[in-house]
């Protein structure tokens, strides 16, 4: 008996793997209609997933850059004297959360505005004589959470006519991201389930088509896993093919979007398209293989009685 149990655990040979590979590919071709449906579903599911991932990644990138820039801008009344200005500055510095403080004079503000206008800076020419822009303190705090508290304190000080901080926009952006994340998760779960269902159906057809063969294999002494592997391979291939198609679609689609954004919209830059190849490609391949393998296993459990 020991000889038998030893043989059960013999390592699978490369030749056997080749056999599994060949069998699964030939099954996919024989079942081409269902195979096509399965591959398309997986591709669609991963394509949608990809769009959401790219969306989230880009929004996240924007948020990080915004978060970095979270600063409080305290505008001074035009009648504030230099002395008063120094008083305010030292008072603000006393707030523990304040990391840095920079004074921006009326002239600085105008210069900055001109720079923002870029090629159109001539538009600001008339403003030099009667500068409408107020002087301000630009304050950075240690943590985003301390922004609200700090800006409230500054707003109460004498000589300050207005305080601005980026909290509102930040909150809105974070809320949008969370919504995108939640809805994409729901969509991915649904599409993933459809993919698994379709693949398990495809495998079921193959199992039925090969019923006779499976019976013969059992009599000849094929192990359970020798019989199962080709079906498992088949599912994993379907998932992988779907993943590859979705990656190609995403790559070409996103490269186009990046190109358009780069030429027409200057305000923000997108994550480069190489991101798809470097990060998404292998992640999606694994997800595809897992979806396919799961679909196979479900079908094998239900329809392959060994």
């Amino acid at each position, binding site marked *: 008996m020991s000889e038998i149990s030893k043989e059960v655990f013999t390592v699978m040979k490369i030749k056997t793997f080749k056999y599994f590979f060949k069998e699964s590919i030939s099954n996919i071709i024989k079942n081409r209609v269902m195979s096509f449906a399965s591959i398309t579903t997986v591709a669609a599911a991963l394509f949608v997933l990809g769009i959401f991932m790219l969306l989230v990644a880009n929004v996240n990138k924007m948020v990080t850059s915004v978060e970095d820039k979270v600063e409080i801008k305290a505008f001074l009344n035009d009648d504030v004297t230099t002395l008063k200005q120094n008083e305010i500055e030292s008072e603000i510095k006393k707030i523990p959360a304040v990391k840095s403080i920079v004074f921006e004079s009326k002239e600085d503000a105008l210069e900055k505005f001109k720079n923002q206008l870029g090629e159109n800076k001539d538009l600001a020419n008339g403003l030099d004589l009667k500068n409408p822009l107020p002087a301000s303190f630009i304050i950075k705090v240690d943590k985003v959470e301390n922004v609200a508290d700090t800006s409230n304190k500054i707003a109460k000080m004498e000589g300050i006519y207005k305080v601005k901080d980026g909290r509102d926009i930040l909150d809105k952006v974070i809320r949008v991201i969370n919504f995108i994340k939640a809805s994409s998760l729901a969509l991915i779960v649904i599409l993933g389930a459809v993919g698994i269902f379709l693949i398990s159906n495809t495998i079921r057809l193959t199992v039925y088509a090969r019923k006779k063969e499976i019976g013969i294999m059992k*009599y000849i002494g094929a192990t359970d896993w020798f019989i199962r592997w080709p079906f498992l391979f088949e599912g994993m291939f379907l998932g992988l093919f779907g993943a590859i198609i979705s990656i190609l679609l995403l790559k070409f689609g996103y490269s186009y979007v990046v190109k358009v954004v780069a030429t027409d919209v200057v305000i923000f830059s997108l994550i480069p398209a190489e991101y798809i190849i470097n990060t998404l490609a292998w992640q999606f391949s694994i997800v595809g293989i897992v979806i396919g393998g799961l679909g196979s296993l479900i079908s094998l459990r239900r329809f392959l009685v060994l």
Partner: protein
Amino acid sequence: MIKFSNVSKVYKNNHIALSNVSVTINRGDFVFLVGPSGAGKSTFIKLLLREIEPTSGEIIVNNVDVQKLTRKQIPMYRRSFGIVFQDFRLLSDKTVYENIAFAMQIVEASSRDIKKRVNQMLSLVGLSNKANMYPHQLSGGEQQRVALARALANNPKLLICDEPTGNLDPETAWGIMELLNDINLSGTTILMATHAKDVVDKMKKRVIAIEKGVIVRDQQRGVYGYED
């Protein structure tokens, strides 16, 4: 080689298929298993293949207690014998050569061994010139020869035949029997369930007759003994 000790099999519907059967088949024997339909021949073979388990009693094959086999050990156990069926059970989308090679692929034999052995088997059953044909292109007798070659490919010590000549005309059947006799003479134990009176009577081998689940006759150089 095969030893049944007080083996009984009662199916779920309380049908008693085998009742207290004890029999020993020795290495090198050629045994016919005869009896009317539903007598228990199929149950006997299914028990041997470990497709079903006995309700009581013990079955020893090649010093292996068949009931004690774990699920994982069953395939290895089945590799120790070859099986031939009445309906051949060849794979229709594989050629003659591939059908025989398939049995060896399953046991993960090397390509060189497969090539050598399959050609050897093809010449043994006289089908070397039809290696690349598909089962549907062959006559019934030829298909059964392929099945026989497949059953013998892994060099089993025991060959189990379930009505191997049932679908063949008498002349073709006789050809198969001559082949089986040769195989037996080269040392392979053969257990053959059959309804073929002519064959059994002519071969003059050991005959075990089962009726209603009981062995009613066990005869060396026996005859079929039924008029059907």
